[in-house]
């Protein structure tokens, strides 16, 4: 076991993690943040996307021990039902979710994309979400949601 300290969604946590434990397992099973999903467990589907020190990662491919000293943001840290992030608000309004299983990872990727590039073209949104698989939507409403969020954030002066 290795003792690590992380900041998760703005809160400091100390944990003991096994050498083979992934960041995804730690998030879901030790911190009980089940919003982050496991689809393939092999870095192919993006359902487990979280932000680590400002960069999106597939948390199934990162060892928990590697997160020592780092700051992690999961879907639970993006916004809450009371105070949705504009990307979440746009997903709600524009039908960005269907079954909802890819949604947390998709929204984390969407927020990261807009942070890096507040006014993306449609092509840049497609590229920015290319690591997140969705079978339900055909991506159209997801792309529209991210476009709408970019607009909302631009108008709000956040960007």
């Amino acid at each position: 076991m290795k003792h690590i300290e992380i900041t998760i969604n703005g809160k400091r946590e100390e944990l003991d993690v096994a050498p083979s434990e992934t960041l995804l397992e730690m998030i879901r099973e030790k911190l009980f943040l089940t919003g982050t999903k496991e689809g393939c467990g092999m870095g192919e589907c993006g359902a487990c996307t979280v932000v680590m020190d400002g960069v999106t990662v597939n948390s199934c491919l990162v060892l928990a021990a590697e997160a020592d000293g780092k700051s992690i943001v999961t879907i639970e840290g993006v916004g809450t039902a009371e105070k949705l992030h504009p990307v979440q608000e746009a997903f709600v309004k524009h039908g960005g979710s269907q079954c909802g299983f890819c949604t947390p990872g998709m929204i984390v990727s969407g927020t990261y994309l807009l942070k890096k590039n507040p006014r993306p073209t449609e092509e840049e949104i497609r590229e920015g979400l290319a690591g997140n698989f969705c079978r339900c939507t055909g991506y159209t409403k997801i792309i529209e949601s991210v476009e709408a969020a970019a607009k909302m954030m631009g108008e709000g002066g956040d960007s």
Partner: protein
Amino acid sequence: MEKYSVIGKSVPRVDAVQKATGDAKFAADLSLPGMLWCKILRSPHPHAKILNIDTGQAESHPGVKAVCTGKDFGGWTWGFMPQTRDEPPLAVGKVRYQGEGVAAVAAVDEETAEEAAQLIRVDYEELPGVFDPEEAMKPGAPAVHDHVQNNQSWEFHMDFGDVERAFEESDIVREDRFETGRVMTGYLEPPAAVAQYDSNGITLWGAKQSPYFVYRHMAACFNLPLNKIRIIQPFIGAGFGGTKNDSVAGDFCSVLFSKRTGRPVKFVYNMEEVLKTARRRHNFIIHSKMGMKKDGTLMAIQQKSIAEGGAYTAIGPLTLYLSGALTTLPYKLPNFRYDAYRIFTNHPVGAAMRGHGATHTRFAAEVQMDIIAEELGIDAMEVRLKNAVTAPHETINKVTVKSCGLTEGLKTLRNTELWHRRGKGGASGRGVGLSAASYLGGARQLGHQSCAAVIRLCEDGTVNYLTGATDCGQGSDTVLIQIVAEEMGLRMEDVSIKRVDTAVTPCDPGSYGSRVTILAGMAAQRAAQDVKSQLAQFAANEWKVQPGDIEFRDRKAFVKDRPELSMSFEKLSKIACYSRSGAVIIGRGYSQYGLERYDWDKGLGNPGTSYSFTAQLAEVKVDLETGVARCENTILAHDCGRPLNPLNVHAQNQGGTVQGLGQTLYEEFLMDQGITRNASLTHYKMPLSTDVPNIEIIDIITQDPDGPYGAKEASEGCIVSTPTAVVSALKDATGIWFKTLPVTPEKIYWALQKKKE
């Protein structure tokens, strides 16, 4: 004033906030105190005798609490019909496909269960396998099931009109062979459940698209009455038919382990298990013969289908049925003959998937019609407009169409700029294709058909709406709440839906065959009307009027034409349920569309309640050097009757279109002597955001009498129309007809090479 307050509006989904915040709990997110983990040991061989299973080492492994094998289920098997119950929870005696469950372990955590499963020693005697349905049909081929002749799992024969005479009277007759691919549904959430067995029976929180299938399976397998079976539905990470409409080995093993250990047991499959073992769409070989008059009139279709069924029967008989019964739409067809054979092989099981049945045979018929029309010099639009069904219509196999927007849809597409780009791609590799399709909604089976609803009134004027119908992502919870709110004159937020709990919600056949909006929707309407009529008694007493004069709108009850007699819905509810009496107001309703039986043996009658119509244009760009094709634009003119939530209808159609596109251009299991060689999401290529076209959906509004507010199905039709629109566009781009799906870059490349020669 508008006729409806919430029906027909693009309201956000009722579960959207939960899903966007990560608050929505799926089966894998659940855990219980003392919970064990179940892992399945799977066969490495596609066909082998099980000589011996030694579980000793696994049983003594630290942390292991129980081990089971196929024999522990006492010979119980399940299947779609009494005569096709051929599938055991775990293999008994022999394995019939690679990845079939052979044994299972329950241990204190997932890792220990995985380790222990690998300690089970299975002695196999490998058997020669059959991996090609045409080979499997030949006399002397290895038998997947003993006593099944020529590996024939099921057959269907339909014969309407006189095809022989019609071919004689045709000016042109063609015969072609078509093939559809080995593909899967592609839901992202792997199957998972938490099971608990105690003195009160079985409780299972499972990722199930149709929980009442599992409810019946568990009662039968564990010999318990249905009132002891409680299937509770968390959020479902999509279904699309097949696996999530069924039980899986993990369900049975987890329940058995819980029974033995007294502890809750959980399983979550990994993606490799999904890709190697889950139900797939059947792949079909279709020999199609079609006759047409010089003027483009369709005279006859005769098809022979060979469907690869894999190792067990599952729902395969229905696949065969639908692949025939739906061929007589969307064009007027006076003569039709169909012979279909479902063949066992040593591959994973073929079952239902979105667009069930029709995706195969309609692909063949639609492309063949285009080829013939081209030979006759009739353009694709003209041949469709000439033959398109118009309502009312009864097909030769007595499928009745009461509303049809196909002609309007085709004419709408004819006016688009995209249609006018057809035939103008020149040497650039661009092409535009056209197709049309129909699909049933409100699917019928021979057994349980109706959906039911219960609405409980709370004293504050809000309601709990109980349905046995499952929203596995398609958005039915939202549409059903729209219906309840509309009928009762309430707002969406006044209606709370409780997801399926078989101990509480009314029994429901399941979420398949686009049946929920139509049938659960009608049940919801009726239950709401029942609440209103009970409440109207109380209002009538207050005002000394007749109950029939009471109306409900805008959260109010009032007397018709007497606006001074009005009170809030909340106040009336309080009077009824609290202050003047403690009345228990519970509304009940069940659907009554389409209860007449169809003739399963002859293929006669309605397999659905109503039928959607789709006309579609697709534009592709083909790299003529490499054969890489990309669909860039598509437009669907889609008749789902009245769209109850247009945003959701469009979203469903976009999803179905892209799923269909994947199965046209990208997706295919690569099989090698029964082994799945591409069991990962990288190698089984489904579309990503960078692969999808711009999709435009045009609503063609019709009003079907057999659906709530005139609604019909959405998204199963477009998975039938997309492959044919794309194949038609590929022809426009390359001059080549592709008859085998998927049309991979390799196939396009070699076809282009051959054409050059």
